């Protein structure tokens, strides 16, 4: 088994996983342990050479998740300030993805029980929503405005307060 053990955690064992579309991936056991689902499978001796099948996670997001877990497992305990900063930078770059990938990561991280990644993806999505006007949000997330102009006006009136505050954003940061 080919193994890049240089930044593995406390275990050298490699865990194999298989995506829903049949692609195989490997990661150090310490990395796999960051996923609640994989950890339970490993504890129950379900991790074998054939690999753990992840029936609802496709190859594309799985590759990202393996990356994430490998990076975080290598730097899990006793972080120096620089290392913590580096990990933060890694996260920030890691989550700069398009909304399709973000969607996949949200669902897959939740399914696999990778808490850190779940939080990261949730925060990223929230940041995207809050930084945009309603029209931009519709565009970004594929939301079709099915209100009639009259209805839309009525709703804005009903929630007038929330729409009024748009004017002085600098005061509210």
């Amino acid at each position, binding site marked *: 088994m080919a193994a890049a053990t240089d930044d593995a955690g406390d275990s050298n064992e490699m865990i194999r996983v298989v995506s829903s579309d049949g692609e195989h991936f490997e990661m150090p056991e310490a990395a796999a342990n960051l996923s609640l689902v994989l950890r339970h499978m490993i504890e129950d001796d379900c991790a074998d050479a054939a690999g753990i099948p992840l029936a609802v996670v*496709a190859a594309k997001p799985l590759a990202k998740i393996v990356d994430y877990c490998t990076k975080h497992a290598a730097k899990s305990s006793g972080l120096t300030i620089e290392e913590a900063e580096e990990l933060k930078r890694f996260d920030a770059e890691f989550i700069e993805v398009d909304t*399709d990938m973000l969607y996949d990561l949200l669902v897959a991280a939740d399914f696999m029980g990778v808490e850190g990644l779940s939080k990261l993806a949730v925060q990223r999505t929230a940041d995207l929503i809050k930084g945009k006007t309603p029209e931009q949000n519709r565009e970004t997330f594929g939301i079709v405005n099915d209100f009639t102009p009259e209805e839309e006006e009525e709703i804005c009136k009903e*929630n007038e307060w929330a729409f009024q505050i748009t004017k002085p954003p600098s005061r509210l940061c």
Partner: protein
Amino acid sequence: MATSGSSPSSPKRQRVAEAPPAGTDKLMSLPAEILDRILAQVPFQKLVRTCCLSRAWRRRWESVTKLRIELPPGSSARVLWRCAPPVHGFHAVPDIRKRDIYRAARWLRALARRGVRELTLRFVPSSAVSRPCRLLGPALFSCAALVRLHLEHCYMPPAPQGFSGLPNLVSLTLIHVLLMFVGGGAQLESLIAAAPRLDELNFHDVFSITTVSDDEDHNVETRAIRATNLRKLVLSILGPIDNACRVAEALPMLEEAYISIDCLLGTQDFVDTFERIATVNKLWFISLDETVKVDEISRNC
């Protein structure tokens, strides 16, 4: 199409392997619990604005629990009644002006019913002490789920009969808070005593005065701090007027204390205070009186 393998009988639990095709709402396609977590992280005003995105979004925000709400002081309480309980936190930003005090009373009614856990109400300071112009609504005492309470520059009303305290309180901060009625001292005392998990207590110029007159005749009610699990205490009385706040017994878990009690200088109460907080490992003592000798304090601690 892009969905894989999950049972169609449970659409809520459905997991989708790939993002939904173009033209579908990517957020609404997420499992409801994930979308709830996302929306709970969106600042409140921006969250409410999602109501205009589409029909499906119109009332979506109203089912998000554990919101951290920041409202500008002029806001109507109506929006709070639409929030799903429990509400995690409420904070009016910027500070509340005198003319909005009645709104604050209405917020409290809504927040009490929404099980608010953390409440911060800060009023713009006013120089007039004599008029109870910033009296909080009595609904404050119905906020039984409160874990943190922070009040600043206001008057606390008398608790209704049968009020049994805020049992979940972990942190209580009162800054320039006045209790202008007979029994105010006792009310504060029981508020503290009825919160067994109280961990942090900040009392900064808190007075319970029944009468205030121009001469020195202040009728101040004493109150005693009894809190066996307290870890942090701020007890600060600026100026020479005694607010009759006393540490009644030893605080065995206390780790940090910030004490400024010039009005008690030279009294047995001053000595007792330091004896009763002797377990601290961090102590800030602030005095404006030049005659204070530090060795006197260190002998007691």
